[in-house]
């Protein structure tokens, strides 16, 4: 294992984050605060409680999930795409670095960024609502697995994309809608029955629901299902990446 190389890639990827640390911290703080103003106050004044939980508190896990999913995908896909796009990838390819090491460097950095952003959202939320996490270990497991698996997905997208359109299209057309429709800001029990059934096909629902369960002990779907889902998703991403590396897909012609 070329640990020095993993560290080099990791640090280089994190550098952008640290070099704009002010921005990196401020923007999740602002967006979180805005969510509380818009969803918490405006809507929350009409919806008192969801499943026995104060609406403002209820949206915290969904809000975190929303940020984790979008940030992980965009950070990881951009990191690898950017190197391909500028041609600087040549150096990594010519170095004594295995595909797994490249992966660990890029995905590790993207997942770390998401983790930091998620934590900032959690801390900020604490100023607005009273949070009490019922199952902290499961919460942390979900938190980390989500950062990792969606950074992996981002990495796959970044490898696959050979232009900016492709880079944008998956987050824009698939991930964002799925997250919005996945019960991030509501419980699916609030939907008409037909939409409840349709929602069950939305993978993001299982994530949000499981994450919410770790906070409050209530969920739309069974927590075991949620854990199985995130495990399956992670394995699928690992499988795809393994195949891409084995075939040299879009890295080495």
């Amino acid at each position: 294992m070329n640990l020095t190389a993993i560290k080099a890639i990791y640090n280089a990827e994190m550098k952008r984050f640290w070099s704009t640390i002010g921005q990196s911290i401020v923007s999740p703080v602002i967006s979180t605060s805005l969510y509380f103003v818009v969803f918490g106050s405006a809507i929350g004044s009409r919806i008192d409680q969801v499943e026995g939980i104060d609406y403002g508190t209820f949206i915290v896990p969904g809000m975190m999930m929303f940020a984790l999913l979008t940030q992980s995908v965009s950070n990881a896909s951009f990191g690898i795409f950017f190197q391909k796009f500028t041609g600087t990838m040549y150096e990594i390819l010519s170095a004594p670095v295995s595909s797994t090491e490249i992966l660990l460097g890029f995905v590790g950095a993207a997942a770390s960024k998401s983790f930091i952003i998620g934590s900032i959202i959690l801390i900020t939320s604490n100023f607005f609502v009273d949070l009490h996490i019922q199952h902290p270990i499961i919460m942390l497991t979900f938190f980390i697995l989500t950062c990792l698996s969606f950074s992996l997905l981002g990495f796959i997208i970044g490898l696959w994309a050979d232009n900016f359109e492709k880079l944008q299209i998956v987050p824009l057309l698939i991930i964002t809608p799925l997250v919005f429709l996945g019960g991030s800001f509501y419980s699916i029990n609030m939907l008409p029955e037909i939409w409840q059934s349709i929602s069950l096909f939305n993978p993001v629902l299982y994530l949000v629901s499981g994450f919410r369960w770790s906070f409050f002990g209530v969920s739309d779907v069974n927590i075991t299902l949620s854990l199985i889902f995130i495990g399956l998703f992670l394995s699928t991403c690992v499988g795809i990446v393994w195949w891409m590396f084995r075939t040299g897909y879009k890295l080495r012609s």
Partner: protein
Amino acid sequence: MSAIIQIQNVSKTYNNGHQALHSINLDIKKGEILSLLGPNGAGKTTLISIICGLVNKSSGSILIDNFDNTTHYRQAREKIGLVPQELHLGMFDKVWNTLRYSRGLFGKKADDAYLDQLLKDLSLHDKKNEEMRNLSGGMKRRVLIAKALAHQPEILFLDEPTAGVDVELRKDMWQIVDKLRQSGVTIILTTHYIEEAEAIADRVGVINQGKIILLDETKAIMKRLGKKHMHLELQTPLSQLPDTLKALNFEMSEDGASLYYHFKNQKEYANIPKLLKAVTDCDILINELHTSKSSLEDIFVNLVTNEK
């Protein structure tokens, strides 16, 4: 000298069906400067990319210091530094950071003293904290060289190091290469300038359409290929070529304003005074004298016709 790189029957067909390399065989000696000379599209970059691990070969084998470059890619790649043809640099990266990154990628422990010295050797030390986007093209090329040397490789590949570089910088580059060779680094550079190959290489491999068509000591190659021409611009055009000059194999341009002479080999250069005297003896006044060497294109025409 032993071969530090052994290339055996390496072929490459790209996914679009284009065959860029046809069964290349080449041994590169430890400590030498080898120049791969060939026109655009000859396959120089493809060959280098395969050796360095950027491109997968379709068949054949490559040994770097006896390590197979695919099955033992770590040991093989550790020994190699690559300066790519294009200026691939992160525009917002600082010189110093990017060097430390390069060294780290190759798994080497940080060694700031070495990197500092490297920057000094490449006259980059005052640019240490500069961002890439603020550097000139020549400086960027130097940074790429510094990056390639950051892990102290035994072998350095330079892909067209002087393409688009002005004359002065080109000379600088040759000096850098020479210094590196003295420190024992094996250097492989590609170029489509015949003068460049002649100026710095110990051996030259001529590559065309994916095949190495000639490989020899630089001197021997130049003797065969580097034909010189002399061109005399006359003050007053001639109506016809004097017989004495015709006998010496001079040629006249159609308008009679120029005389040409083609040297058959380097030894003939010694005849220049005699040739000029023959011209002045005919009461012909010379305005200007030019000499030029055959271009790469001439050489290929020559080689191909010689093969037939």
